[in-house]
């Protein structure tokens, strides 16, 4: 049934945990649509055959007026189905928006007209090919160097716009090893239709072997544009180590301490996911997006109690460099644990429940390959 419907609708293969959920709702909607439209069309045709004009001048129909019950049914039945579909669809959407806590991160950068992928702990970075293991959740942290792009993997039924100047996230858990196309789906210029990439899903053991090998002897060089500072550094360094070195050379430690001691700027220790009170009194959670934004536009959201002395690092740090610094900041924990990353609702796939934001905070991250 699933295969028949999928082929009739020209849908791509279902290669992620979410894709079958989404397709089932699709089938529900399309079958209902077909049934209802056949009924409407059949009624219209029946009325035409029975009540067609037979050529008499001045012929007219009999007046028919609506009843309250009739109008209530006309309103109630469609409303019931529309809201039912919405409820199911929104539930799935919340799952699509909530990466599982144990997801492995990959940084994605879009630029005209290619995709770059890098692994936080110093694994190989690649252009237009993203290698991931099957059956492990992967979270993509995405940003753009120029205009808006959108990262669309039809086989996973996922899509997320990739914005300049901020991070967005998307996640998937691939179920079948294979090669799946990635399309850019936001108009980004002349090369928009050629901004394609590929997700290569590997068997987990195969992936681990490949990952360790690549990490141990060579990293794929970025093949376009000028070299970033990262490329001049020790290839064996992890992203965290790169972040530390970059922060040192960029002069971050002149104002930010890493051990909790007071300084000119807020300390980096436990900064990640800290609730900061801003100048205006609002509370801001220091997530990836906020930390990156503060590097690029420090004056936008200043933490209360500090002078604005920080310069903008826009144009001075490339995408992977700011990402490395963010990873370094994330590693600075006073209790030695890894932090929970998201405040939003999180969906536990196994138990089918939404995990409250607070309850996940004690969980220690157990990344699959670190």
């Amino acid at each position, binding site marked *: 049934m699933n295969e028949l419907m999928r082929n009739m609708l020209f849908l791509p293969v279902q290669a992620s945990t979410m894709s079958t959920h989404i397709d089932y709702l699709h089938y529900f909607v399309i079958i209902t649509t077909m049934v209802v439209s056949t009924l409407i069309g059949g009624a219209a045709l029946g009325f035409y055959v029975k*009540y067609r004009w037979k050529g008499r001048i001045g012929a007219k*129909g009999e007046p028919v007026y609506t009843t309250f019950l009739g109008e209530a049914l006309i309103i109630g039945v469609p409303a019931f189905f529309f809201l039912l579909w919405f409820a199911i669809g929104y539930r799935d959407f919340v799952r699509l928006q909530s990466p599982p806590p144990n997801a492995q991160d990959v940084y994605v950068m879009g630029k005209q007209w290619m995709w770059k992928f890098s692994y936080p702990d110093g694994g190989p970075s690649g252009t237009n090919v993203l290698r991931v293991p099957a059956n492990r959740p992967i979270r993509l942290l995405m940003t753009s160097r120029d205009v808006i792009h959108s990262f669309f993997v039809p086989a996973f039924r996922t899509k997320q716009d990739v914005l300049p100047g901020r991070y967005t996230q998307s996640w998937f858990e691939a179920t079948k090893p294979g090669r799946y196309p990635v399309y850019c789906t936001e108009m980004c210029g002349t090369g928009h239709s050629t901004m394609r990439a590929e997700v290569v899903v590997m068997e987990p053991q195969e992936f681990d072997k490949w990952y360790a090998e690549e990490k141990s002897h060579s990293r794929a060089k970025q093949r376009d544009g000028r070299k970033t500072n990262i490329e001049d550094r020790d290839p064996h360094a992890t992203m965290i180590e790169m972040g530390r070195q970059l922060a040192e050379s960029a002069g971050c430690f002149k104002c930010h301490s890493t051990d909790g001691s007071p300084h000119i700027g807020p300390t980096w220790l436990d900064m990640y996911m800290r609730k900061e009170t801003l100048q205006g009194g609002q509370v801001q959670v220091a997530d990836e997006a906020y930390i990156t934004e503060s590097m690029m536009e420090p004056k936008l959201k200043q933490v209360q109690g500090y002078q604005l002395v920080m310069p903008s690092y826009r144009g001075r740090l490339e995408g992977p460099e700011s990402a490395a610094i963010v990873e370094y900041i994330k590693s600075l924990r006073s209790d030695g644990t890894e932090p929970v990353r998201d405040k939003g609702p999180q969906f536990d796939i196994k138990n089918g429940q939404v995990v409250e934001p607070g309850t996940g905070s004690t969980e220690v991250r157990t990344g699959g390959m670190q």
Partner: protein
Amino acid sequence: MSSPSPSPTTTPAVPVEPKNYLNCETGVRSWLLTRDHKRIGLMFLACVTAALFLGGLFAMLIRIELLTPDETIMSAQTYNRMFTLHGVVMIFLFMIPAIPSGFGNFVLPMMIGAEDVAFPRLNLASWYIYLAGAAFALWGMVHGGADTGWTFYTPYSTTTFTKVVPILLGAFIIGFSSIATGINFIVTVHTMRGPGLTWNKLPLFVWSIYATSIIQVLATPILGITVLLTAIEHAFGFGIFDPAHGGDPVLFQHMFWFYSHPAVYIMVLPAMAVMSEIVPTFARKNIFGYKAIAYSSVGIALVGFFAWGHHLFTSGQSTFNAGVFGVISMIVGVFTAIKVFNWVGTLYKGRIRFSTPFAYFCGFIYLLVFGGMTGVALATVSLDVHWQDTYFVIAHFHFIMVGATLMAFLAALHYWFPKMFGRTYSEGWGLVAASLIILGFNATFIPQFLLGNAGMPRRYWSYPAEFQALNVASTAGASLLAFGFLTILVYLTIALFYGEKVGRNPWGSRGYEWNSPSPPPKHNFDSPQVFDHPPHDYDSEGHEPEMQTEVHGGTEVHGDDGAKR
């Protein structure tokens, strides 16, 4: 369907060359300086028809380019300009003004028994503003065009080197035309209704155009602000939407869709307006659920303002926003469903006459059901993630917005053509062209639904080879569609000069506008109108709807044709 039987001898004797709005004054000046709503309506119709053919030409070039996975007839850069121009011309120059400014201008004052609109000079100014905006946009197209898509998403639109600014300014200027016409209709409906014409007696066309006017007046200024800010940012590098200058790119999307989503209803409500007139006329009975149809138009107009965020499900807006906008979009879907059921219900116990306008009504209902249901599917948030910015969305909005507007435009053209020009066209050719258009439309866009399911993104100049078969099918359908339009152009042009003359009310409609002669005199009616019967009323005592043999054929027997079967 009845065969047309020309029998000029039965035409009621008419005075030789009666003065009407077309021949009461002659010369170019009498047109360019006219304040007659009927002439202004015709001038709008001429312009929007030219825009339709220009936009159609761009569409055909796009379809030809997509015949092969790589370059067929144009480069990627040219292709990007083509789809942008197709969108801009079709939306701003054709669909938004087509029915309100064209047919609305012509028939709305007649439907309420008025001599003209409330502000005749403003009405003429609206046409000139439209021309000025069109001139700006066309200048930009000739000098390079824009390559951003009609949505002008920032920061691409503010950094591209193409001629975005004149095209944005063109859209900005045309907005004033839209606002002027909207204000004019609102005031006209409030102040110029004939004696006895209460709100609950207004024809449904007037209700829908009234709702449209409210949206035009309230939403268009937002578009004005948005495109002006984008033009300023493009020209001077202001940091409003471009994060490289401290702006916010998603802000543009919110502002753009805050206009452009209600604008969808600016396009589709007038289409519904036309159909609410045509159904009772050709079913020859009262409309089923007058109040439901009238109030759902106003409901769509109001609720439609709060649904814009469903264009942004994958843009990075919050999960909560997505939920709110999804629910609101579903409510708009319910309003549309109400209308569909009521129109189909109107056919029950009617005396249905199948003629060209009714053929377009059938096409309209079909497109509205599938376009509407795919819209509901798209508002189902998780499904939209896969479909967003793919050909599924293209096919969806061509079904509901373009298809509905196009069917209504053609239906209105064939329905009011005898009233406008006092002549009629060949019914046979009318049905042939309607079949070509409806078939061509399906053959063009059904493959695009499937392409979207398969994952082909929109605005793709080159595409993976596995999508080719469906693209070729779509292009074949588009050729059929183009052929249908050319057929209509030919037979309506012939009918304009050589068509058979018709009398006051060839369809035997109970619409108030049919009380005037065809074509109407300069001041619309020979005598003041009295509104003593409800609209779309085929049942009141002493009101036998007349029907004319020169159009209908049939036997000259008045009365019932066996309704008590």
